[in-house]
């Protein structure tokens, strides 16, 4: 274990790191999408077009911050803040390296589930307060999608909890010294990743936004930095889901000793972030009813069967000497 770092320094480090990486992902996503679609992507501002992030941010800041006269003003303003706050709160329980964690709560995973379930309110309230039919449609889709996929997300994580007997993410990572949980919990990993993509409402599950059907869904009426908050909140959500996946199934900071633990953690997290972008580049969006069918008729039975088999094996191993 390293010398304990002051908790406020960890908070500042995590907050600064996430807030720096999240806008950087805009550039990464556009470059990678361009790569996979055989074009250049942003390549003018700065080296490899990195400064496009700065240009984008400046543009968002100087756009007119327009609140529609028919909107419910207070709720309209609160909604984009909720998505960023809840996504950032989720980082409280993530261990980036041994001891480098904001708070090692003994209910770590449940805390993460609670924050992600509160994130649904940003979509619902944003869409409702816009007082616009397209926004309301997007909000209703978002509400249904996030409630249903939360169920599978929680259930798929419980396999890992059964194997370690703890909700704390630090304990879970330490339990993976010999074997990453992706091997015994492969089904859990796949279902968790699918549910995670649905929770961040990224393509192919971007039903609440679906630009080609309902303009921009729940954030149709948002402009300027309020839209920017939704945008950044989505990227923070991607980082959050990727880091939770790494902690639960891919051994967190564990790795060969030639690199420090934090670097391993960041490398693994970026693999998943790139996977998220690759999914966006390659998969079409399902229809709304197909999404619900897939969730309740395939994912739910699979997660429950996985949970029962895991529990049976754990019980069997405990009873046999």
């Amino acid at each position, binding site marked *: 274990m390293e010398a304990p770092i002051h908790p406020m320094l960890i908070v500042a480090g995590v907050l600064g790191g996430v807030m720096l990486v999240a806008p950087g992902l805009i550039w990464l996503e556009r470059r990678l999408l361009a790569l996979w679609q055989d074009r250049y992507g942003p390549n003018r501002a700065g080296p490899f077009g990195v400064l496009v992030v700065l240009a984008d941010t400046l543009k968002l800041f100087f756009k007119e911050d327009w609140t529609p006269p028919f909107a419910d003003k207070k709720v309209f303003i609160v909604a984009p803040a909720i998505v960023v706050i809840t996504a950032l709160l989720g980082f409280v329980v993530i261990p980036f390296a041994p001891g480098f964690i904001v708070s090692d709560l003994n209910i770590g995973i449940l805390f993460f589930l609670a924050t992600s379930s509160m994130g649904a309110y940003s979509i619902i309230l944003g869409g*409702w307060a816009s007082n616009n039919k397209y926004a309301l449609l997007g909000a209703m889709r978002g509400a249904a999608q996030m409630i249903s996929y*939360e169920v599978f997300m929680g259930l798929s994580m419980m396999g890992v909890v059964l194997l370690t007997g703890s909700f704390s993410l630090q304990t879970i990572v330490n339990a993976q010294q010999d074997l990453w949980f992706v091997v015994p919990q492969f089904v859990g990993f796949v279902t968790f990743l699918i549910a995670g993509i649905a929770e961040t409402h990224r393509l192919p599950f971007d039903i609440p936004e679906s630009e080609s059907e309902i303009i921009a869904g729940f954030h149709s009426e948002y402009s300027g930095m309020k839209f920017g908050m939704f945008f950044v909140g989505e990227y923070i959500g991607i980082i959050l889901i990727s880091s939770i996946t790494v902690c639960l199934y891919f051994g967190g900071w564990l790795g060969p000793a030639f690199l420090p633990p934090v670097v391993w953690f960041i490398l693994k997290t970026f693999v998943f972030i790139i996977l998220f972008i690759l999914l966006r580049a390659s998969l079409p969006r399902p229809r709304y009813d197909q999404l619900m069918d897939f969730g309740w008729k395939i994912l739910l039975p699979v997660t429950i069967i996985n949970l029962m088999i895991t529990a049976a094996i754990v019980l069997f191993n405990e009873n046999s000497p």
Partner: protein
Amino acid sequence: MEATFYIASAVAVLATIMVITRYNMVHALLYLIVSFLAIAVVIFVLGAPFIAALEIIIYAGAIVVLIIFVIMMLNLREETVTQEKTWLTKEVYVGPALLSVVLLAEIVYIITSGETTSVNQPVIDATAVGVSLYGPYVIGVELCGILLMSGIVGAYHLGRQKKKIVHRFLEKIEE
């Protein structure tokens, strides 16, 4: 830690009062979420972090979302706010206020009699909750399961639709 308990309970009481007095349904539900969060903090401080997390996940995260979902479906407008204003008159408050006074008297009696436990309880973790749920309270768990199952069956029965074939030649309703 005791200060957090008192602040959170004050927030819970205030938010709940706001829930009752709002005319706009969605605003009332927003205060209800705040109230649930504050109660979760209270439970957390009292030493039950597991139940506090479940309170947020289930009540604030799922049930209120469902209520808002239904309200969005109803498409309430300005008229309903004025309608609510006519319903929420001063006379409506009399009954609940009288009953609350009885409760208040009881609380005052309990506090003054001094037979209360301290705020700092030992922490009850997930294992203890699980052991008591599947030990002495297993019948309650089973009954809840049956209740939820009957709810699902009822919802399926209400939501079931006849298959409709839309085609020029096959236009008939099939069971």
